[in-house]
């Protein structure tokens, strides 16, 4: 079951530069997409989300872009900081009534070096 895919297991970026994390999905029923950040020995922390009726959502240094026709979304972090070093998970859900489970990708480990 590979409904949500993150094809890059890792990404290294220098401090101050842009980090771009990518995610692809296959299920056309997904209509809500989320990014979570995870540090070792902690639970996933919600970062930012986007509804399928939008193509962009911005929150501070974090911007998520959605391309529905390509079934692709990306998370941009600008500027990247060493504290951003973590595993980033893309997740998707179908519907937004509260019941819906999240389907996660395998994660991308981001390393931001000073």
């Amino acid at each position, binding site marked *: 079951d590979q409904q949500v895919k993150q094809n890059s297991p890792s990404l290294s970026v220098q401090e101050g530069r842009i980090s771009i994390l990518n995610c692809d999905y296959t299920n056309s029923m997904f209509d809500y997409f*989320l990014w979570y950040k995870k540090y070792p020995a902690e639970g996933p922390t919600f970062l930012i989300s986007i509804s399928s009726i939008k193509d962009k959502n911005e929150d501070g240094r974090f911007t998520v872009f959605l391309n529905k026709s390509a079934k692709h979304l990306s998370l941009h972090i600008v500027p990247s900081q060493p504290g951003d070093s973590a595993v980033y998970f893309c997740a998707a859900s179908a519907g937004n009534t*509260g*019941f819906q489970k999240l*389907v996660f990708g395998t994660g991308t480990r981001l390393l931001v070096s000073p």
Partner: protein
Amino acid sequence: EPEVTQTPSHQVTQMGQEVILRCVPISNHLYFYWYRQILGQKVEFLVSFYNNEISEKSEIFDDQFSVERPDGSNFTLKIRSTKLEDSAMYFCASRKTAGPGQFFGPGTRLTVL
């Protein structure tokens, strides 16, 4: 800021034993979830719970698993007879009636020997 808490942080058990993992969701949340992450794999949905009943469960959540909200604040996951392949991080999550995402606890690492 309110957060989801989980106990214990690490549970070691023998194969065949019962374990209960405990969670205290954020107090005004109404939807509750359990997920697990086997080492090196993705986070997988186990079960969702609302209004004192299961609303959805995955194929992983077989008869060996059960959930309960015994007292209005705790949310528990019980595994009746643990198997080696149950070794994983188990995450509890909760959600308000509205809002973009689910809020996760720090997880319980379950090790089955």
